[in-house]
């Protein structure tokens, strides 16, 4: 009996020790992976900090202050509430334009996709508009809508509209016809086929468009604010530059970068959430 029991015990010991080492090993691997992935960013920040400190002459150091000066400035602006004013100005504009683009783009896209003759008719025009850089139209919007909020919201709307529209059309058109047939045999009428089959089936592709729209909404707005505005991150950048407040300019640029990153990450998370079922 004891001889029989021995190997069994050995195995049990082995598995338990394996269980003990596995989590720490996995955690170590995750830490290593995270370090490796953030390595490039950390390296970049180090270069930003060290090169102005030790390699640049004082005259050119003014134009590229080391990271810690920029961060100090950023902190000052956070504490004074200055930064928040500009962020909320920018975010407000892009959110309104972006949401309008969704509210208009998705239904229009669905209609265009559903009535294929309308789609064939409109498509060439849509292609022309889509391939016209939004910023090229900024003077037109400024002339017709003034330099206030309206022209800025409009340019965001314009930039965000096309990715949403075109992806909605693409999504609705690429619905598996088999699902439509199945829906019909399950008693769905045309409208129900549309709302219960075509719409949910196109959600993953529509969301790709929404993510693209979100990114371009922020990008275009910053550029628009740089040309003419009284508040906002784009204004903050050009205004600081003009006033020779160089650390402040970099602080604003850094904020823009972080904001773009956060907006994109949030939209990616949202996209994942709504497309869970598509990961077949």
């Amino acid at each position: 009996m004891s001889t029989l029991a021995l190997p069994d015990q050995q195995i049990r010991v082995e598995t338990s020790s394996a269980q003990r080492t596995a989590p720490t090993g996995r955690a170590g691997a995750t830490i290593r992976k995270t370090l490796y992935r953030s390595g490039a960013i950390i390296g970049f920040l180090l270069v930003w900090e060290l090169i102005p400190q030790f390699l640049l002459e004082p005259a050119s150091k003014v134009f590229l202050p080391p990271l810690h000066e920029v961060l100090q400035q950023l902190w000052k602006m956070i504490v004074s509430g200055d930064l928040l004013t500009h962020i909320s100005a920018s975010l407000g504009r892009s959110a309104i334009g972006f949401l309008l683009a969704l509210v208009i783009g998705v239904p229009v896209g669905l209609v265009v996709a559903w009535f294929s003759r309308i789609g064939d008719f409109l498509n060439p025009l849509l292609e022309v508009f889509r391939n016209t850089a939004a910023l090229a139209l900024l003077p037109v919007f400024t002339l017709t809508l003034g330099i206030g909020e309206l022209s800025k919201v409009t340019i965001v709307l314009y930039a965000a509209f096309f990715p949403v529209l075109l992806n909605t059309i693409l999504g609705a058109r690429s619905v598996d016809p088999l699902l439509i047939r199945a829906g019909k045999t399950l008693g769905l009428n045309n409208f129900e086929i549309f709302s219960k089959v075509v719409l949910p089936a196109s959600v993953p592709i529509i969301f790709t468009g929404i993510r693209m729209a979100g990114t371009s909404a922020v990008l275009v707005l910053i550029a628009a604010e740089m040309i003419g505005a009284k508040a906002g991150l784009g204004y903050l950048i050009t205004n600081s530059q003009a006033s020779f407040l160089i650390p402040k300019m970099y602080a604003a640029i850094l904020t823009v970068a972080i904001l773009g990153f956060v907006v994109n990450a949030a939209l990616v998370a949202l996209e994942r959430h709504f497309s869970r079922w598509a990961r077949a």
Partner: protein
Amino acid sequence: MSRIEIKNLSKKFQRTGASDQSAVTAIDSLDLWIEDGEFFTLVGPSGCGKSTLLDILAGLSTPSQGEVLVDGQPISGPSLERSVVFQQYALFPWLTAAANVQVGLESQARHGQGLNKAERRIRAHEYLRLVGLEGVEDKYPHELSGGMRQRVAIARALAHEPKVLLMDEPFAALDAQTREQLQDLLLDIWKRTKTTIVFITHGIEEAVYLGQKVAVMSARPGKIKEIVNIDLQDRQSVDDIRSTQQFGEYRHHIWSLLHSHSRQDVAASVEKTLISSGATA
């Protein structure tokens, strides 16, 4: 629970703008009579128009000629009375298994003749249990195996209690073992519900095992070659009925019906290639 009469049915496919002569005849003046509560299988080579026929029965496409009567009434479009199970499952991937099963029930409810929400959920669970699925109610299709997905599809087709169940090669994409399991499941369900089943397959054995009658179709144009009455005892009361002599005879008979024509075709085409290759040499 319904009788189906197909009278002088033809279906031609025509490319838009093409002339009348270029039309492809998928089904040519076909007559068929399917009894109330019958398990009717259709077997034929690919391209014999059997899927076209099923589409017409489902109301998903209209015949070019002739008519189809269900209990004496002509078909006008899809209906909850005729459910379809497709080869590729056709489950809605954004709905859970239970929600998929409820789609037809919800349509019924919208037309004011159905169950309320709680009853629908109970019914969905009942039918998932009927097809041998328990505990997967909240799973999404991509989390299920092919066999389980087809079980969900069968539950979805049956939950609103249709009179006719139309099945378009439903087990063709499954592995052999799963296929046999689902064949037995389907026979059980049929015995219990007495639904008229029209089952399309290209598997001769499957057709004989399931059908009370097997209609053998020929291709181009699609016609019924022969209807074979399958006079076997209860399939599941005998061990391995597929290896009995009687089963083998049915199988062979249908096999020869399917091959008598195509063998001549093969011979002709071989001859043709020999001649043409001889000419080039």
